[in-house]
Every structure is written in C-alpha cells, then in structure tokens.
C-alpha cells in the first residue's frame, strides 16, 4: 500500500511537470486558434526555436539559465511578429486547407534550418549546478530541476490568467474570442490584438520549449514529433479557452506518465484512444468556446 502511495506521488509529480510544460507551450495555440480561427500546425516551431535559443545562449555565450529563458521568450515573440505580419495575417480568412498547408510548409522549412544549424542530435542543455540533483520535500527526493520547472510554470500560468481576467488586453481577447465581428464593431483593433496575442502565445511556446528541453529534448524534428501532443491539448481542452487546455494538459501529462509507469506496454495507445473518445463525446473539446 505504501509502495503504491509512493509510486502515485511519483506519477503525479512527473505527470504535472509534463502537463505544465505542455500547457505553457500549447496555451498560445489554443488562444490563437480560438481568436483567429487559424489552424497553426507550426506552433511547435516556436517551441523548438525557444529550446535552440536557450541551448545556444547557454553553451556558446555562457548566458545564465534564467536570462536564457527570458531571452527565449522575447526573441521568439519578436520573431513571431515578423511571421505574423508577413505571412500568417494574409491567411486569416483563407480557409483551413490553405492554413494547414502553409503551416506544414513552415514546419518543413524550420526542420531543414534547425538541422543545418544544429545537426540531428538533440541540442545540449547543461543546467547550472543549483538545478541539478535532488531536493528533499517531506522526506522524499524529487529532481530539483523538475520542481523548479513546475514552480516557474505555475507562476506563468497565474500571471497569464490574471492578465486575461484583469487587463484591458484580456478583456479584448475574451470579447474577440466570443464574437469577432462584434468586437470589431465596438472599435477593437483586431489586427493589433491578433498580433500581440500571437506574439505572446508564440513567446510562451518558446519559453515552454526552452524550459521543457529536459522533458521534450529539442532536436530538428521537434515540431513534427510533438505536433500531435500540442494539438491534442488544444483540441481536447477546447479552442479559445484558457482553463480547458490547462486541465487537458494536466490530464494528458498525468495519464501519459501513469501509463508509462504502470502499463508501459500500452505505449501511446491509451492517450490516442482517450483523445478519440473525448473528441467524439465532445467535439468542441472540454471547455471549447467554439469547435
């Protein structure tokens, strides 16, 4: 019994760490898909970029870890604005197929570039010593870095929710997700709103990619390999929702970890089967504003 309780703690711990990272990466996707109706398969590209930036900054230029995280966020956010203005914005009303193809194209290009610059190996991330080893919490050892990771993710989540609930920007986003035409007619500049939101969502993905490089190693095929998981979080959580994907990400993180721990032979079956079941039960996701 005690052994079971102990393993349950482990599963929850690793599941939450994984779920948190999934959420930080995917939340931007949920909001941009809900807000702009854009099927952005290339969201993982931003996460990969964040991870590669962190790796380079730390390994080549000895940038300290926290600063490298911040750098990943800022640079990816800025980079995404360029993409948004030049390319994405041209396809807001172009229909799903065009969006799917365009973002697939982006994925291919980014994979090629990443491979050219970083090779096929995972980009190395050497954590500072204070993040290595174990932390003892209530008589149990937990890997230090994952504790910190959960902590940082939690701060991000709280900040984000507070921002959306309490700021003018948040109010505008909520209004525009509910009804874009209405928002436009009451004078919200949706162009700028989209741009800022896209940048924030992509920046978060970059931050998540950097922060999670330990859990999801960053290498050139990252955007393709993790695409399904990011999409599942959003589809199951529901487009345009903040809390839906959070719950979905935690569920996936914990379920995935639990499967690996107790029924490794099931592999990814359970996750996929659960996703299919959930989507058939609620096609608009758990908390979807729209399908």
């Amino acid at each position: 019994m005690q052994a079971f309780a102990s393993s349950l703690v482990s599963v929850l711990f690793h599941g939450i760490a994984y779920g948190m990272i999934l959420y930080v990466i995917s939340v931007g996707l949920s909001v941009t898909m809900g807000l702009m109706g854009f099927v952005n398969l290339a969201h993982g590209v931003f996460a990969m970029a964040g991870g590669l930036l962190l790796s380079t900054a730390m390994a080549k230029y000895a940038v300290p870890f926290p600063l490298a995280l911040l750098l990943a966020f800022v640079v990816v956010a800025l980079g995404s604005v360029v993409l948004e203005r030049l390319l994405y914005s041209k396809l807001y009303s172009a229909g799903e197929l065009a969006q799917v193809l365009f973002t697939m194209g982006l994925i291919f290009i980014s994979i090629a570039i990443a491979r050219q610059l970083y090779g096929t190996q995972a980009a190395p991330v050497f954590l500072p010593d204070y993040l290595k080893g174990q932390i003892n919490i209530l008589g149990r050892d937990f890997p230090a870095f994952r504790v910190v990771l959960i902590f940082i993710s939690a701060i991000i989540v709280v900040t984000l929710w507070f921002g959306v609930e309490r700021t003018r920007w948040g109010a505008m986003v909520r209004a525009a997700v509910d009804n874009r035409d209405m928002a436009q007619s009451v004078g919200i500049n949706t162009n700028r709103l989209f741009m800022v939101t896209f940048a924030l969502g992509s920046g978060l993905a970059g931050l998540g990619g950097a922060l999670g490089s330990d859990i999801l190693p960053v290498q050139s095929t990252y955007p393709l390999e993790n695409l399904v998981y990011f999409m599942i979080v959003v589809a199951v959580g529901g487009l345009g929702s903040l809390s839906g994907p959070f719950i979905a990400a935690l569920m996936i993180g914990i379920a995935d970890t639990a499967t690996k721990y107790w029924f490794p032979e099931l592999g990814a079956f359970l996750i996929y089967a659960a996703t299919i079941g959930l989507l058939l039960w609620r096609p608009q996701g758990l908390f979807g504003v729209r399908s």
Partner: protein
Amino acid sequence: MGHSFLRKSLAVAAAVGILTGAASAQTIKIGVVNTFSGPQASFGEMIDRAFRLYIKLNSDKLPPGVKIEIINRDDGGANPDKAKQLAQELIVRDKIDFLSGITFTPNGMAIAPIATQAKMPTVLVNAGTSVVVTRSPYYVRTSFTIFQHCVPLGTWAAKSLKKTFILVSDYAPGHDCEEAYSSSYKPAGGEIVGVIRAPVATADFAPFLQRVKDAKPDALMVFLPAGRTATAMMKSFVDLGLKSSGIKLIGTGDIAPEEELPNMGDEAIGTISMFHYSAAGDRPANKAFVAAWRKEYGEKATPNFAAASSWDGMAMMFDAIIKQNGKLNPDKSIEIMSHFKTDNSPRGTIYIDPETRDIVQNEYLRETRRVNGELQNVEIETAAVAIKDPWQAMQKAKK
C-alpha cells in the same frame, strides 16, 4: 519505333562500353543505398566518409587501371519501397558491381530478392537484425547483430550484478536485445526483476526510470535506437537519482554513442556498454584509423561503429577486387568475401563466417570515462573473442 530506338541506343551504349574497356581504365562501381536525409541522416555521413577515406588511402593497392566509383542513393530512413527502387535502379541503370550501405533492416529485407535475382554481391554495413543476412545468398554483413552485443552483456552482468531491470525500445531490435540478454543472464543465475518496453518515440524517460528506481535493481540494462534518445535517458537516469542510488547503467554501445557523449557531460561517466567498436580502443589499427579520420575530417570528428563497419566493408570489397584482379564475377566475389579475414580492422581481428556470411568479431566491455578532458568509452575487457551471431546458433539448436 520505340523498339528500334531502344535497340540503337543499347548498341551505342555497348560500343562505348567496349571502347572504354579497351582503354584498360576500368571503373568498378559501388552502389550505396544509404540514409542522408530524415532524422537518421547521421548514418549516411558516417558511412560515406568511411568509404571515401578507405578508398583514398588504399587505392594504390588496386590492380593497375582499376578505379572505384561510389554512387550514393538516399533512402531517407526505413523506407523499403524506396530502398528497393533505388537498388533496382543502381543494378539496372547504373550497372554497379557491388551494392552496399543498407542502413536499416526493412530496407535490407526488401532489397534481398533483387540482390538474389541480379546476383549482386551486397555488403551490409549497418543493419543489425540477425535474420536479414539470411534473406539472400548474395548478402555479406560486416556490421554486427543485436545478439552479438546483448548475449555477452548478459554473461558479463551475471557475474556481479544479480538483479537486472530491462528497459528496451518497443520494436523488433529492442525485443531482440531483451531476448538475447535474458538468454545468457538467467542461466548464469541472474534475476530479471522487471521489463519495460518503452515506445520508440519516447522523449521523457522519467516515468519509466522512476519505476526502475522503485524496483531497486543492481543494474539497468537499456537498449535504445542508435543516435538520438540516449542523452535524454541518461539525463533522467541521473536526475532521478538512479545513479547516486548505486544502480549500474549497462547496455549496448547505443546508450553512450561517441557523438552524444559531449552533450551528456559527466552524467555519462561510469556507464557500462557492450559493443564491437570504440573509437577509444587502443589497438594500433584503430589508432591509425582514428588519426586518419581526424586528419581528413577535422580534429573534432570521431568515427563511430557504422564508420568502422563501413571501413571494413570497403576493405572486404577491395579484397574481392584485388583477388580477382579487377575481373569481377559475382559468385566469385561472394565466395571471396565469405572467407574474408583481417587482423587489421579498427575492431581487432574480424572475419566472415563462410556458412552464414555474417561477421565474426570481438565484443568489448567499455566504461565511459573522462580521459584527458574528453569523454571516452574506454575498453576495459574483451568480453567475447571471435563471437559468431548467437541467434544463428540458437536457430540451429531449435531445429
């Protein structure tokens, strides 16, 4: 009309062929079906570099007037349909004399029927599933088999590590290693306390390793696909405190590949791996090989096992060419290659078992250490001398 055109062009081609033949400058073509794109692209580079380096350093040994030409084709990974098409074209269109490369087992499986049909001497320099070499009488393998690593590993581990937890990738080679390890470990008194078959695409090993940790084994035996996931596994192994709790990490060389060691850092130190090649091996032939490699491709470049197999594979083809004085006959070539033996391989003494056309080589027990500031897989013991593929023997025993 099509036919007469075809006949004419064939006639012209034949005439050209005779002319060039008469000029006594003979080009022997080696077609290589290899992986240059996709996630496994690093194999392509290793194999190609080894081939070219061997040719460059040894072309003076060829019969006079004989030149070697390599024709590379990219299969993009495990794509049997594509690999077969490429092999077919190399044979039919490029009229190659040898076929080589074959990075992945499924590709080797698909090419086998046409290699047989075309009597094409084929040198497998990477694919490692035991059965693949049996698929065609024109196949010879210089690489390795999974059983060659995992059987001696089990034998060695049983001596001091009584309880093993097995973690393998959930695909055929992983299953092979699990079977091979158990086959030697259990009869020698070892106990297997758990087996996890992890999905091939696993990125985060923490949940698996957490379970291993909770099971408190003496050793964790790991088999992963070569080349990409080892670092992630290693990091989690240390992060979760498995290393500090005294669990020994053992496995095939794939858990501590030379090219990933720099990314792993000190976490990798102490890892025990069983393999047929280490760039750190102190045989003179290997030292010369590594030195030549670095001279050609830069100080930071390090050859890996695929490079060693390819080097030997090219040596074997050279042997067949030299012994026939450049006048190649496929059956003769296969005959010669099936009896190939050298003491000068970077891997030590190797030879081909004429019966199975499969590689016979030493297996080295290595430990990852920091030597002169550089992480290396130091060979600490020759765990098996001239080991034949144990799987073949097991199949025979079954009959």
